[in-house]
């Protein structure tokens, strides 16, 4: 009798059984941005490191000039920056930025050229440059570096990349 009663009791539990009803939706893919920069050789002397993070030019007995771009490798607009180091500092700064691609034949800047200032720190000349405005994706900073006939090496190194400010992404 107890067994029967227990069985009956067990079957009466769903008396207040509830019906479930609902709906759901799934968003599209939400993807995080990638932020970075890399050097891309343009013309002349000098070489880009394998990881794209630096570019160097070395002068031995003769003067040499090289052209290189720092590329915004981010998936979002960003401000790029770089540092310049030189073993010795003779005369003017060995590195300059042009607002337009350099004329690699004449060495002239078709736009506005800006010398990258260097300062001697612990026996090494060091300077830096940052873009004032956000560069679009794949945008470039056009650089030229020269070394004189004196044994010298100029190295450009990619520095901080500052992406666009955070904001409302509801429609973009």
């Amino acid at each position, binding site marked *: 009798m107890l067994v029967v009663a227990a069985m009956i009791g067990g079957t009466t539990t769903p*008396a*207040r*059984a*509830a*019906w*479930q*009803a*609902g*709906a*759901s*939706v*799934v*968003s*599209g*893919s*939400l*993807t*995080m*941005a*990638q*932020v970075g920069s890399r050097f891309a050789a343009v013309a002349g002397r000098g070489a880009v490191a394998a990881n794209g993070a630096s570019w160097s030019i070395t002068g031995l007995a003769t003067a040499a000039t090289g052209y290189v771009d720092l590329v915004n490798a981010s*998936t*979002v607009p960003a401000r790029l920056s770089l540092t310049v180091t030189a073993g010795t500092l003779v005369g003017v700064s060995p590195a300059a930025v042009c607002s337009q691609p350099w004329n690699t034949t004449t060495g002239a800047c078709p736009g506005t050229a800006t010398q990258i200032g260097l300062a001697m720190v612990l026996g090494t000349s060091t300077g830096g440059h940052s873009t004032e405005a956000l560069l679009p994706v794949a945008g470039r900073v056009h650089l030229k570096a020269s070394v004189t006939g004196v044994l010298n090496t100029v190295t450009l190194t990619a520095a901080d990349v500052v*992406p*666009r400010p*955070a*904001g*409302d*992404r*509801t*429609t973009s």
Partner: protein
Amino acid sequence: MPHRRHRASGAHHCGTCPPRRPRARRVTALALAAGGAALVSTGALSSWDATAKVDSGDLTASSGETTLLDANGGAFSAAVANLLPNDYFHRYVDVRNDGTQVHTYTGTVSATGDLAGYLSVDAVTCSVPWTTVAGASICGGVQGTSLVSGASALNAPVVLTHGSIATGAAAAQHVRYTFTFASNAPSSLQGRAGKVTIAVNNTLVGGNDRTSG
């Protein structure tokens, strides 16, 4: 032989024949007996049949259908690329009760993929459809309290209390979900992806006294 002739003719003129029960009397007796039995059997339980019936009104099972509608020109299924820390986006959804009676709703918001744990959600209702004016999200009616207590990280599904929603489009609940990408998201997440899912459920529980409708 004469007896046979008399029987065959049906006449009863034999004065020497022994007395015998007349056939008519036997038939009458049987008929009376049968009639009496019939009278007894019906008369004892006799009644007049008079029946009446009523049918109930239609008894209809409740329906709890729910629909989630994109609102304010947006689409919940729209993808968002190139999220940066502190980026946020709104998604507007109308929760419409397409069932047959008022129901109480609960909801969940969950995240999957690499961004789970670095997204937070806030959800708030408006008494009228949300609008966007000059890029700003506007509630032109009465803005409700947040369905979640502040922005909640989506490490696990977050439960929302939508409350009671009546049937029909006019009673739809206008919800604005705001998803924010965490400011402390590590750079190792660059290029990674995830998704968010919203769900709204109602539970139809019986056991109520429906005597009066």
